[in-house]
């Protein structure tokens, strides 16, 4: 289980080595030697009473990338984002956003960031255009509310009260409001939570467009599909720790590119017996379902069926899934990502 270390390219001591190496090369003198990321998180610790919600989270986000924090509910994603936005204080570690300390320089920071928060709302009787204008008035620079309305498909809703908007329209308005100041970093906390699939795809299109424009985005999600589709890099977070970090492709490659086979059986089996089957790389039981990983799925299925026949056991169901970040999560934690 030392895999996550290999994956994280931004370990503090790697940075230190880089700094030392840069420093000893004379022609580098006088220049900034550290590659300064727009968003840096080092060993972040946050406690709520006795509970450690964040237990030393580290990652960097580079300018122009979409970075995803993927993890189950309660993993500490929202806490991380709220600390970076300057909404919460941290108990340990160091963070910097746009070169600013969110805790001490929150006033300056808030001019530079845009955010679509979770569990937030606007007054019922504010009209769409009024909300955009109001929020635009808080900043000196920014985009024209008119242009944002158009871009987010809200022109015909400009005079609609907030409480008359659908869930998808509210979320589009939230994204539009996150852009009113043309921010350097955009925080999207669970941007599609609670939306139905069709609306979710609409939001994906919007985020993909922002990605093409090279906006820096830090988003959180507990949807694997979302992280794979939208993010340049993903940090998988669980119980307040980053357990894997890399591009979706790297992460999947790490799980060996193995296919996941999920079977339900009429009688219980031991994991060990299944693991030793030909073609099966790995087997686990998770709430009644056996999850096998295999590089040669056909062979694994054949040997599984033979084994079951010999044991007098029967297949109840069998599902084959292509490799995804879910497999990385299962491998790291022995649990599924969704609750």
């Amino acid at each position, binding site marked *: 289980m030392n895999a996550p270390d290999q994956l994280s390219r931004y370990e503090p001591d790697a940075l230190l080595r880089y700094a030392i190496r840069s420093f000893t090369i004379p022609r580098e003198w006088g220049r900034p030697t550290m590659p300064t990321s727009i968003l840096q998180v080092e060993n972040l610790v946050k406690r709520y009473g006795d509970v450690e919600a964040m237990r030393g989270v580290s990652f960097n986000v580079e300018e122009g990338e979409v970075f995803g924090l993927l993890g189950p509910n309660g993993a500490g994603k929202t806490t991380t984002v709220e600390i970076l936005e300057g*909404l919460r204080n941290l108990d340990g570690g160091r963070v910097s956003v746009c070169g600013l300390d969110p805790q001490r320089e929150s006033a300056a920071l808030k001019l530079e960031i845009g955010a679509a928060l979770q569990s*937030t709302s606007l007054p019922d009787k504010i009209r769409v255009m*009024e909300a955009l204008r109001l929020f635009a008035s*808080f900043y000196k620079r920014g985009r024209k509310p008119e242009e944002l309305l158009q871009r987010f498909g809200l022109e015909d809703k400009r005079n609609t009260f907030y409480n008359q908007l659908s869930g998808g329209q509210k979320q589009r308005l939230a994204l539009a409001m996150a852009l009113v100041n043309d921010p350097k970093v955009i925080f999207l906390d669970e941007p599609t939570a609670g939306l139905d699939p069709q609306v979710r795809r609409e939001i994906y299109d919007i985020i993909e467009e922002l990605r093409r424009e090279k906006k820096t985005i830090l988003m959180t999600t507990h949807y694997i599909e979302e992280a794979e589709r939208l993010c340049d890099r993903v940090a998988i977070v669980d119980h307040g720790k980053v357990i894997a970090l890399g591009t979706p492709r790297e992460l999947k490659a790490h799980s060996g590119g193995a296919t996941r086979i999920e079977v339900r059986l009429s009688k219980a089996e031991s994991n060990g017996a299944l693991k030793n089957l030909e073609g099966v790389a790995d087997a686990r039981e998770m709430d009644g379902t056996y999850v096998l990983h295999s590089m040669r799925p056909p062979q694994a299925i054949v040997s599984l069926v033979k084994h079951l026949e010999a044991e007098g056991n029967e297949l109840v169901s069998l599902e084959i899934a292509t490799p995804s970040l879910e497999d990385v999560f299962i491998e790291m934690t022995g649990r599924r990502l969704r609750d």
Partner: protein
Amino acid sequence: MSNFASLTRTRILLAMRNKMFFFFSVVFPLVMFFLYAGIFARGNPRRVSYFLGPVIAFNVMGSFWGLSAALVMFREQGILRRFHVTPVTATDMLASSLLANFVLTLPTISVELFLTRFIFHVPSLGNLFSLAVLVTVGTVSFGSLGLVVASVTNTMQETQVLNPLIWLPLIFLSGATFPLAYLPDSIQHFGLFLPATYLVTALQSALYQSFPVWKLLIQILALALWAVLTFFVAAQLFRWEPESKIPRNAKLWALATALPFFLLGAWENSNGDILKQAQAAFHSLEQPASSEPHSRPSQ
């Protein structure tokens, strides 16, 4: 436009679209007005003039209820949270709600003054400058008290319990509902510890007896000082997040807002003449009509 100005504008807009606001800030005060002027004062101009003070005091003190409810609702629904990631500060948020509330109080008061003058034929509305000063310090100070209440309660339910606990003594023991001089002696003395008493008696003196500002300095200064203190406490205790709990020292801060009137009440009870003025005004109502309050030379 500054954050403060654009927030104030939005708050005014939102209040005008709110049916509850319309009822509590326009309909209800006017019903009170007709109740006092028509029934208590029986349309007698002198009595109408006497009761106009308490009616306007009701309007002004109503700021307390409206602002506490609005702020708690904004916090509970996560609306404040959204503003927290913008450059808006707690002071912007609080001060804009006070200014919006002040602006929104003026039309109803103007209508009441108009009705007093032209429907109930009261010859003089007293000292309008004193009235303006008192309405200003009154709405700001009672509004700030509402903001403090919003900050020492976690949910709307708690606010709806605490509000009447504060509101009822303020309206019943201050002369706002029953004239102060009509209340039992001990209650009159207790009333001197309440900020409402100073607002009611000062408004009454300004409207009924045409007191200029300099004769109301104690009340005006006390309310102004109290406004500054309550606003400061409200800003200290302000919370953006629905789930963040009240700081431990909050109750102490909230108690501190009672301090100025505790001290003033102690002083007024032994040396002051605000109570005597209120009694004199009340008894003047029973004197024959020849001694019109407005034509009396002021003492």
